[in-house]
């Protein structure tokens, strides 16, 4: 208690700083905690507004609802297992062999990370759907049904294997190949060296990647909405349909809570247990990667695998690009510019809105994240742990839950924000501060506190220290955080879909609408536009920011830091 008081007094000795910290607390309470709390509360009321557990009772009694939990979990776990296997093989190939054109393959592998999360769903429809290029035109199957478990899992693997790849690449890079040399040096053959050294050492990372993909797959919204179909209900989409289709907010909220529980559990295990178990054995300069761990045969197999996956990426993106300039995919493959004309015609406002929201939200989110990182690393005050947890929570909370929380929390004065641009911007700001926080914390922890002390010693107050010393030092991390947050803001869907309005719409939502009404060509055209904007933004930032902070490496760095 005494310590607390002393900390408080210290904080208030710098009034501006104290004011800012209080402001951060208030903002997080309103825009992170309040929506979550609203969802919880709503799920515990019945339709007439009284407290009850009716919704949960219904959840357990109705098979359809119960199976949505089961479906989400089984498809999530399947996706996670296969994604981790693919990610591990790819990461292993890039870190342990002399594969040529590594950078090219790397960029190709992470392309899905910068695309809207349902791009692959669209490709799958066009390749394997009832009129799919492969199923109908090449294999000649009539009315092939891609919907349900297999479609969702296939699409999610394509979407999330890159995430697993990025995580595991970081893990394998931090394990010195010298350890494998050492094992072989005392008599281990390749298999033994891998099974007794490489594998056990990467196991915490593998588990971590598994949980990260599981969290992402559980909260995934776009792929299920396109590919789940009516006979394979899943939690995130079911919650959405309950609210927008049946206007049953309480039940939707209860489904969201059901989704929240496994996500948060996975997050807590990943963050507070697995991260401490990870081995880092690289010290100093990275050693040569040429290792005898991989035999010629194994190398060929890995190369084949990498080549196949790359082809798949090409195929998936090629199909989208092709469909964007095709009259009617599946029936009439003649060239047309109509889709783009239509997209620009009806969707120009949407494109501008999307850019506006991303451009407004990203810098604010980045600055706020950096400031919170500074607070976390350099200050001590009561409630710091809570502040840190709250600000990171949005990593784990599925977008669906956040979206529902926002419409519940901000639908009446004084916080009447529904239908405004502000609610979209605010949602993105608070959804992506963890990105800034993570990279900020990582950088700040490496800065010797005596640098700050020196500045203070020369007469700078703490806000000046933050502005003049910390910001320049963390600038590279800040910019790579910006790139990542911008990409996420441009491609996000799950929360945003609850918050768009007739006045302010977003590209991702627009694409889903087009898919829903069967205009795959227009959806493809919108997707192409979106990916082009994202790539252009990445290149612009890369050109403006010297060093490796911008560009594609930002995606790599951010992903690594955000999932640890």
């Amino acid at each position, binding site marked *: 208690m005494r310590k607390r008081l002393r900390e408080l007094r210290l904080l208030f000795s710098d009034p501006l700083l104290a004011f800012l910290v209080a402001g951060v607390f208030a903002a997080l309470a309103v825009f992170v905690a309040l929506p979550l709390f609203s969802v919880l509360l709503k799920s515990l009321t019945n339709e007439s507004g009284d407290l009850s557990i009716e919704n949960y009772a219904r959840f357990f009694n109705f098979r359809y609802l119960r199976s949505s939990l089961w479906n989400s979990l089984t498809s999530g776990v399947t996706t996670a297992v296969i994604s981790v296997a693919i990610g591990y093989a790819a990461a292993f190939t890039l870190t342990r062999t002399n594969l040529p054109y590594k950078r090219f393959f790397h960029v190709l592998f992470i392309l899905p990370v910068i695309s809207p999360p349902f791009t692959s769903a669209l490709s799958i429809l066009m390749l394997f759907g009832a009129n799919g290029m492969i199923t109908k035109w090449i294999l000649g199957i009539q009315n092939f049904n891609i919907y349900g478990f297999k479609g969702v899992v296939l699409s999610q693997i394509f979407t999330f294997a890159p995430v697993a790849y990025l995580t595991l690449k970081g893990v394998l890079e931090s394990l010195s190949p010298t350890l494998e*040399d*050492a*094992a*072989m*040096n005392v008599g281990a053959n390749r298999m033994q060296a891998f099974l007794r050294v490489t594998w056990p050492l990467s196991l915490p990372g593998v588990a971590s990647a598994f949980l990260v993909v599981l969290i992402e797959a559980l909260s995934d919204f776009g792929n299920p909405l396109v590919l789940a179909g009516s006979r394979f209900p899943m939690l995130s989409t079911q919650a959405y349909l309950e609210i927008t289709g049946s206007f049953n907010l309480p039940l939707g909220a209860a489904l969201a809570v059901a989704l929240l529980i496994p996500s948060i559990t996975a997050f807590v295990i990943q963050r507070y247990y697995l991260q401490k178990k990870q081995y880092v054995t690289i010290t100093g300069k990275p050693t040569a990667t040429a290792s*005898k761990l991989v035999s010629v045969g194994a190398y060929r197999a890995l190369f084949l695998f990498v080549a196949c996956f790359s082809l798949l990426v090409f195929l998936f993106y090629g199909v989208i690009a092709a469909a964007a300039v095709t009259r009617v995919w599946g029936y009439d493959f003649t060239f047309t510019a109509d889709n783009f004309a239509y997209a620009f015609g009806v969707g120009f406002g949407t494109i501008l809105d999307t850019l506006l929201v991303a451009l407004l939200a990203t810098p604010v989110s980045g600055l706020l994240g950096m400031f919170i990182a500074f607070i976390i690393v350099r200050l001590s005050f009561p409630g710091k742990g809570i502040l840190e947890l709250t600000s990171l929570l949005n990593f784990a909370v599925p977008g669906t839950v956040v979206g529902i929380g926002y419409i519940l929390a901000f639908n009446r004065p004084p916080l009447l924000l529904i239908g405004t641009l502000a609610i979209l911007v605010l949602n993105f700001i608070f959804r992506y501060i963890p990105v800034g926080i993570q990279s900020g914390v990582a950088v700040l922890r490496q800065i010797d506190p005596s640098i700050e002390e020196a500045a203070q010693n020369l007469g700078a107050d703490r806000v000046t220290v933050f502005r003049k010393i910390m910001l320049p030092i963390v600038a590279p991390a800040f910019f790579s955080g910006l790139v990542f947050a911008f990409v996420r803001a441009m491609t996000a869907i799950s929360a945003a879909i609850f918050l768009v309005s007739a006045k302010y719409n977003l590209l991702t939502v627009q694409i889903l609408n087009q898919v829903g009404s069967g205009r795959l060509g227009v959806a493809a055209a919108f997707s192409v536009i979106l990916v082009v904007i994202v790539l252009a933004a990445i290149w612009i930032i890369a050109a403006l920011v010297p060093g490796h902070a911008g560009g594609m490496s930002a995606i790599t760095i951010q992903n690594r830091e955000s999932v640890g």
Partner: protein
Amino acid sequence: MKITIKNIVKEFESYGAEERRKQEKIFRAVDDVSFTVEEGELVTLLGPSGCGKTTLLRMIAGFEDPTSGDILFGSVRVNDTPPNLRGATMVFQSYAIFPHLSVRENVAFGLRLQKLPPPEIDARIAKVTALVELSGLDDRRPSQLSGGQQQRVALARALIMEPQLLLFDEPLSNLDAKLREQMRIDIRKLQQRLGITSIYVTHDQTEAMSISDNVIVMNAGRLEQMGPPAELYSRPVNRFVASFIGKANFLPDPESGHTIMVRPEAVKLALSGEQTDGFWGRVTRSTYLGGILEYEVETKDAALLVHEQNSFERPPFAVGDAVSIKLLPSGLVKMD
């Protein structure tokens, strides 16, 4: 086991910025090196950082394949033998201790792979941990060990295999100065007692001189000279060896046009009046190092470094003193 290295060359696809600027696609890390190590000998590879020592050692261990040349263990060519079957164990610069295994399991790693009966493994662990003075740490995790202890684990893990050849890659470079000196004495004693043929890499000339039967001086991938420490110091074959091992003065020989190398200890000074007829100079620096006194003397056409045993018989020369200079004939080495 006698080791023979014949005309070994190792080329890498260059990855350094320097080489890329020079547009060199191929970089020769080891350039036509040959030597032999006799049974029971300890030979040191000595040279500046980046001269190819590690690369050479890794080829002997089997982690890298030579571009050309032969490696013979005894009379057997081992170029195509995989690293796990060479019977040459290595102590790595970074120790490369398995972080997920206890000290005991680290040491036992190789024997477990051979599926030896547990009692025998236990006996050998006990023997080797006693040998490297590591007893009692069996169940510790590597992260709980000090640098010196990790070093001993790495040594024990290599020794327990009863190798034909022991390889060391700068094993002491991560230890502090005191410990480094102790460890190098311990390693040398152990190596002599067990009689294991050893190749030891270092960039520290004192370490090389104090531990080796023979020293190989390397520079930019090439072998410059091989010989016992005394020979390298007193009869270096070129400027590089002369200045890499100890300190050296280079003087032009007016008669032959060759360069003469003379060690600072082989230069004798005496106080002289101004303008003696012989070889003379003026002291420009005088440093009291304790056991020895170090001077810099400027002559008409050269600056000489001079070491004098501190005899306590007279005060050291002072800056500005004029001194006559004598070079001990036995300390003069002709270079080309």
